[in-house]
């Protein structure tokens, strides 16, 4: 019986990385993917990676997707790990989504409204039939409208609010700077700014399932899609040395405002309540899910008895982040043989103890 303890972990790791690199490239006879192709032709994947990676940078998100071989969760992790090394040089002024350069804006609450319904680039009313022509190449174009959409479009919940039917959406007293989950650990009770930041970074699938649960039976806020809008919003900062705002760029955002169940404390007029969703890029599924979960998490505010998973802030916020959950679920791949041996040892001892007892009884 000859036994040599295992060595060579480092060589194995390096070889594994080489193997990944080779597989990532695929057949060298095929042209290599360019980042521009990913950024423009796989844009929804780029959007998702930016949203969950918590960093607006389509080029880096495309690079992350290429590096991760199209694995969106892994790409988001790559982006997060990069993001954390960046210096925080300024805080942007609050984004004004009513100044959004609208590419899409719909409301389910009114047939027509100021600014109109703008379908924009949507697959909502497509027939989900595989388009075999896409296997080839082409350069399709779409017709342009004769006139641009309105420069400013009021947000539908604000229109409802003008009549006093909507709970107001005001900053908290004193308009404090929002918290930052990337700098300070989550603590409970978590205020709404922190909850929204968590949800904005949250895994889309996790949010989608939770949002669905509130609609299907594990929740009770009947929602209306007050408005969903998507387009570009300018980002402004006020450098200390200048003292006035300058525009440093723009981001594509999807905003979803849900109009939800009527509430009114005694002595107050009953009003609709709100759920809010916002995500980088064109991510309606994510933004709508976020809005439903945001509303569910406001149970305390409206004296609703929390009875469902989506209303439980600890449950939702601690398990929503896919970088955390993916890491911890997959850490089970790490060696655990010390603890496994501890369990085996206990089983052996228990068996031995039982055998001894049985033997005693037999004698």
């Amino acid at each position: 019986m000859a036994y040599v303890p295992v060595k060579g972990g480092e060589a194995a790791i390096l070889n594994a990385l080489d193997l990944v690199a080779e597989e990532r490239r695929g057949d060298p006879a095929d042209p290599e993917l360019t980042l521009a192709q990913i950024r423009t032709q796989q844009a929804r994947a780029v959007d998702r990676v930016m949203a969950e990676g918590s960093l607006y940078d389509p080029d880096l998100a495309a690079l992350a997707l290429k590096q991760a071989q199209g694995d969106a969760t892994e790409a988001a992790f790559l982006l997060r790990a990069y993001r954390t090394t960046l210096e925080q040089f300024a805080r942007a002024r609050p984004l004004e989504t009513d100044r959004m350069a609208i590419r899409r804006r719909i409301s389910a609450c009114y047939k027509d409204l100021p600014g109109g319904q703008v379908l924009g680039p949507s697959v909502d009313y497509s027939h989900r039939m595989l388009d075999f022509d896409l296997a080839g190449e082409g350069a399709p174009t779409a017709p342009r409208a004769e006139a641009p959409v309105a420069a400013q479009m009021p947000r539908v919940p604000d229109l409802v609010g003008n009549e006093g039917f909507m709970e107001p959406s005001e900053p908290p007293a004193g308009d404090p700077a929002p918290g930052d989950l990337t700098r300070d650990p989550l603590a409970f009770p978590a205020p709404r700014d922190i909850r929204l930041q968590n949800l904005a970074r949250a895994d889309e699938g996790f949010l989608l399932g939770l949002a669905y649960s509130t609609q299907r039976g594990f929740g009770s806020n009947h929602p209306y899609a007050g408005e969903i809008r998507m387009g570009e919003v300018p980002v402004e900062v006020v450098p200390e040395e200048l003292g006035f705002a300058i525009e440093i760029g723009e981001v594509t955002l999807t905003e979803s405002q849900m109009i939800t169940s009527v509430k009114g404390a005694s002595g107050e007029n009953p009003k609709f309540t709100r759920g809010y969703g916002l995500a980088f890029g064109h991510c309606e599924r994510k933004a709508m899910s976020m809005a439903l979960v945001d509303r569910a998490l406001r149970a305390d505010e409206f004296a609703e008895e929390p009875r469902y998973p989506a209303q439980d802030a600890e449950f939702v916020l601690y398990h929503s982040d896919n970088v955390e959950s993916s890491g911890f679920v997959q850490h089970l791949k790490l060696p655990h043989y010390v603890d496994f041996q501890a369990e085996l040892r206990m089983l052996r001892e228990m068996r031995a103890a039982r055998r001894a007892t049985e033997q005693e009884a037999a004698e």
Partner: protein
Amino acid sequence: MTHAPRRYNFGYLDEGTKRMVRRALLKAVAIPGYQVPFGSREMPIPYGWGTGGMQITASLITPGDRLKVIDQGADDTTNAVNIRRFFAKVAGTATTEATAEATLIQTRHRIPETPLREGQTLVLQVPQPEPMRRLEPRETECRKIHAWGEYGLMHLRLYESVAQTGRITINHSYPVLVNGRYVMSPTPIPRFDNPKMEFSAALMLFGAGRERRIYALPPYTSVKSLDFEDHPFTPQQFPDPCALCGARGVYQDEILLDDTGAKMFVCSDSDFCARRRAEGQTGPAPQT
């Protein structure tokens, strides 16, 4: 793409982040066994793979340190190799496999067999810092339990275990009472290693990245494994000596040799075992 190649700061984390981690460490040392929340950062390895320990190591490491990294007691397990490689890359630190020569030791699941001495720092990677979590899933409730020192739930768990199986069936992460005040999870080290924490001469630091908590055992701190008078705490015992070096009273790995049940037990601490073999000690198994 206009992103120029960037150089990372010494130890990877920026100095502001290191200061934040060190402040949490100081608080943790001042309140032994208390879980200090800290602004854990994303690291370039996944959560659950040692990000908390890495942030502590990154905040403490200096060019003069000698770093040892182990996983399951061994220097050559893949995760240990990977973390050592990381610090060699971002800090250029000297590394060592010798426990006695290391100034800083990052570990997962074990405390080395060679007794640690004053001036050494052991950094433990923590997957779940909260000893009460399996009994109480809510963080808000757990904070109250610690604040009030109301640990009845944990004693009940131990009691139920004794009542049902005649023994305390916690084999790793065996809860300890620190400095007579806080119940603490020693992380998934086997309970074999618990006695090594009692009045340890070395500083022990615990980092949980995903859960954003840091806690500490300053040198020479009272660490009592929870038990009952009639069911005292007992570490695991291995009946046979290490098959390679003949050591007794050490934690062992079980090595399966074939599929017919042949196996051997060898030291889990690879440095300890190699050192003994270099000294000419042998176990019952012939070596090649």
